[in-house]
């Protein structure tokens, strides 16, 4: 099975993945990324913040970036009409 590394970039900086995971294919790597982003966002939301600025860069065994998934891709956001962005 191919090995993938998941580097996380978010408001607290870069967390490089040194261990990685064996997964069947890129679709599985994408699923793990989405699950992780949702897990992190829900954990942050418990303490009252929601920061959608961030991404996971997935690297293959040779170090090449296979895909990049932004936090925004992992959740559907609905806001009240006219809500201010800042």
């Amino acid at each position, binding site marked *: 099975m191919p090995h993938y590394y998941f580097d996380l970039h*978010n408001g607290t900086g870069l*967390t490089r993945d040194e261990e990685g995971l064996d997964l069947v294919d890129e679709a599985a790597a994408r699923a793990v990324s989405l699950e992780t982003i949702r*897990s*992190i966002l829900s954990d942050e939301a418990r303490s009252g913040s929601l920061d959608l600025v961030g991404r996971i860069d997935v690297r293959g065994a040779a170090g090449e970036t296979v895909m990049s998934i932004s936090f925004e891709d992992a959740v559907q956001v609905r806001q009240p009409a006219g809500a201010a962005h800042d």
Partner: protein
Amino acid sequence: MIERHIARLRARHSISGAEEQAIRGLVSETRRVAKQTVLIREGALLDSSTLLLDGLLCRYKDMEEGRRQITELHLPGDFADLHSFTLKRLDHNILAMSDSLLATVPHERIQRLINDHPRLGRIYWFSTNLDAAIHREWVLSLGTRGAAERTATLFCELQVRIGLIDGTSPKEFMLRMSQSELAECLGITPIHVNRTLARLREEKLMSFRHNRAEIYDLAGLRRLADFDDGYLYLDPEPL
């Protein structure tokens, strides 16, 4: 190698010389297993219990799509399945997380031991109650604590349990498990574990890298976890 088991018992209860001899008589055969070996499968009929002499074991339950929840970790000197003495079939699996040395203890020997030494029967009953207390704390963690607090709680628990064998409060210890396995204890993904460990490192509380846990600030880690070691019954009433 059974010394660690006896040390673990003596950390909480007095054990007389005669009782110690009886406990030593439980073990005759030992065997080595490679990491990632499933020692006991859910539902299998058992006529012996497994005592961990060296290595690391866990109890886990399987879900579809290869998902697992680890429900307890077993350290050297722990029985992994003393409860199989009465249950005979387990509702969970037992996995060797690292290369491990095991002793197989036939249930008939446990039966004889508690007939001949009823007090040891109570001490082993205490031991299964302690496992239940640890499970309750894990339920509390999974249900109410955030990722960082959950991780901190687990390492606070392991720091106490590992120190029990030699009566120390270790600042660092080896724990032969991957971030994926840690994730299966904590109910979050491995990458989230990686992020959480980075946070604990940045906050100068602890680190866990290459199977080595280092506690920088035990009081701070306990404060973050809201950790109370009462559930580990470190100073129980005499039996």
